[in-house]
C-alpha cells in the first residue's frame, strides 16, 4: 500500500499516497525563510543534488514557527514540506520523538500509523534504499538544527549510492 512500491495491492491507497506526495511537491507548505530565526541549517547532498534549508523560531521549549526552502527530488522536498506541517507548534521533545518515529518508519520498522498521519505516505521509501536518504534529509536537518548546528553541511559522505 505504498507510493513507491507501485505494485499490485490496494491501488486506492497507493493512489492516495502518491497524490499526497505530489501535492506537497507541487505546492510545498511553509516554503520560505524565517528571519530572524533561532535555528538555521542547510544540509545538501552533492551526490544527488537534494538540498534543504530549515529555519525555525523556538519559544518556551516549543517550535513556534518553522519553514523550509530547498531543491531536489519529490521525496526530499515533500518530506520537508510534510515535516514543517507535522511539527509546527509542537514541543521540542515531541518533535524529537516524531523525528525518531519517522526515521524508524523509513528504515522499515512498524510504527503507529495514527501518530504519523500524512507522514505515512512516505513509508514506501523504505523499500528503496537509495531513496531513504532523500526522505530523511529534512528530519536529519531538523535534529541537527535543534541540537545547535547552523550554517551549511554536506551530507554526501554517508550516501551509499554509486555504480556506473
Amino acid at each position, binding site marked *: 500500500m505504498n507510493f*513507491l*512500491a*507501485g*505494485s*499490485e495491492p490496494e491501488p486506492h491507497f497507493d493512489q492516495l499516497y*502518491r497524490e499526497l506526495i*505530489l501535492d506537497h*511537491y*507541487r505546492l510545498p507548505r511553509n516554503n520560505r525563510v524565517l528571519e530572524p530565526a533561532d535555528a538555521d541549517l542547510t544540509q545538501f547532498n*552533492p*551526490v*544527488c*543534488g537534494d538540498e534543504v534549508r530549515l529555519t525555525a523560531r523556538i519559544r518556551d521549549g516549543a517550535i513556534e514557527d518553522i519553514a523550509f526552502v530547498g531543491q*531536489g*527530488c*519529490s*521525496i526530499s522536498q515533500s518530506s520537508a514540506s510534510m515535516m514543517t506541517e507535522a511539527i509546527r507548534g509542537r514541543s521540542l521533545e515531541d518533535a524529537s520523538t516524531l523525528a525518531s518515529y519517522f526515521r524508524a518508519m523509513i528504515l522499515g520498522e512498524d510504527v503507529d500509523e495514527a501518530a504519523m498521519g500524512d507522514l505515512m505516505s512516505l513509508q514506501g521509501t523504505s523499500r*528503496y534504499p*537509495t*531513496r531513504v536518504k*532523500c526522505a530523511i534529509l529534512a528530519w536529519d536537518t531538523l535534529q541537527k538544527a535543534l541540537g545547535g548546528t547552523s550554517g551549511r553541511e554536506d551530507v554526501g559522505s554517508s550516501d551509499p*549510492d*554509486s*555504480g*556506473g
Partner: protein
Amino acid sequence: MPDQSQQLNVEAIRGDFPILSRVINGNPLVYLDSTATSQKPKQVIDTLADFYRTSNANVHRGIYTLSEESTAAYEGARDKTTEFINASSSSEIIFTRNTTESLNLLAFAWGRANLNEGDEVLVTLMEHHSNIVPWHMICAERGAILRFIPVTDDGLLDLTDIETLITERTKVVSFTHVSNVLGTVNPVRELVDRAHAVGAIAIVDGAQGAPHVAVDMREMDADFYVFSSHKMLGPTGVGVLYGKRALLDEMPPFLGGGEMIMEVREDGFTWKDPPWKFEAGTPNFADVVAFGAAIDYLTELGMDKIRQHEIEITDYALRQMRSLGEGVTLHGPPNAEDRGGVVSFAIETIHPHDIAQTLDWEGVQIRAGHHCAQPLMRRLNVPATARASFYVYNTNEDVDRLIDALKKAGELFGRQ
C-alpha cells in the same frame, strides 16, 4: 551456420535471455541499464552451471583428469579473449576481478615502478571514477601530478590544448574508449599516438568499448586495454587486463601468493611469466569459463552487427526524446554514429530520481545518479542524470515504452 544477414535477429536473441520474461510492477520488463551491467543469455548461465556440475577442480594444480579439464577450459577462455580483441598472444591477457581492479593493478604495479616526483598522469574529465581514483592515490604516493583533458559542450574530448597537456613530463595517458555517461566514442588511435610520441604509455578503459564495438589490439596500439565480463553478457567477477608483452615483462608483480610464483625461498622468490605473474591465488576460473561462452555468443552475433544495431536504436531514441519537446536536455554528441548505445538526459522540472522511480512503476529500468563520474557531472553542471542504455536485446519497442513512461512522469511531476 553463421547468420549472413546484415541485421541482428533481436527476436531470437531475446529468447536466449531468461530474465526478459520477468514482469516488474505489473509490466513486462524493459531493461535499459546494460551500461551498468548486461543481462546474461542462457548459453552463459548454462556454461557456468555445467562447469560446476561436471568439471569443477582447481586450475594449474593436480595431475588428474578434472584439474586438467578445468585448466584447459580456463586457458581456453584466455585464448578466446585473445582472439576476440586480436592480441598478439594469450600471454597478454590477464584475468582480474573487473575493470576497476585492472586499472588499480596498473596504477600500483606500473605506477610505483615508473612514476616519480613531477611526472604527470593525464586522464580526461569524462572518466569513470575507476580511472581517476587509483591515479589520485598513486600520484599522491609518488609526488606525481594528475591532469585532465577537458570536455566540450557537445560531450567530446576538447583537444584544443592537447599539445600543452601531453608533454615530455607525461608518463601515462589513460582514457575511456567510450563514455559511460555521454556515450562519446573517443579518438583512441590519435591519443595513443600522441602518448607514444612523448614516450608515455597509453591505457584505454574499454569497459564500454569491448562489449559494443569490434576492437583490435594490434591496430589500436594501446599499451594496455581493460574491460569487464559482466558488461558483455558474461558473469560478474571477471575483468580483463590486456598488456603488451614487453611491458608485462618489465612491470613488477602486483599481488603475491600462490599461482604467480616460480620458486619461493627463505630469502626471496621468483615469479612466473605473464600472464600468471599477475594472477596470484586461485583465479575465478568458473566465471572465466562462462565468460568464454559470452565471447562465443558475441562473436556469433558479430560485433559489427551489434554496433550497427546500437547506432540504429540510439538514433531512434535520440529522435524520440527530442520529440518530447523543450524541457528535455540530451547530454553527449548529437549524432548516434559518434556515440555508443547510451543516452543521458535531464528533464527540466523532474529530478532524475523521480524519473527513474516513475519509470520503474512502468517496468522500465533505467539508472539515475552520477554514474561514478562526478568530475563530468560538475562539468555538465548537474548533480545527476537519468540514463538509458541499449544492448543486443533491446528493441525500438523498448524505446517506445521508455517514451510513454517519460510522458507519464511529465504528467505526474511537471511543475508549472
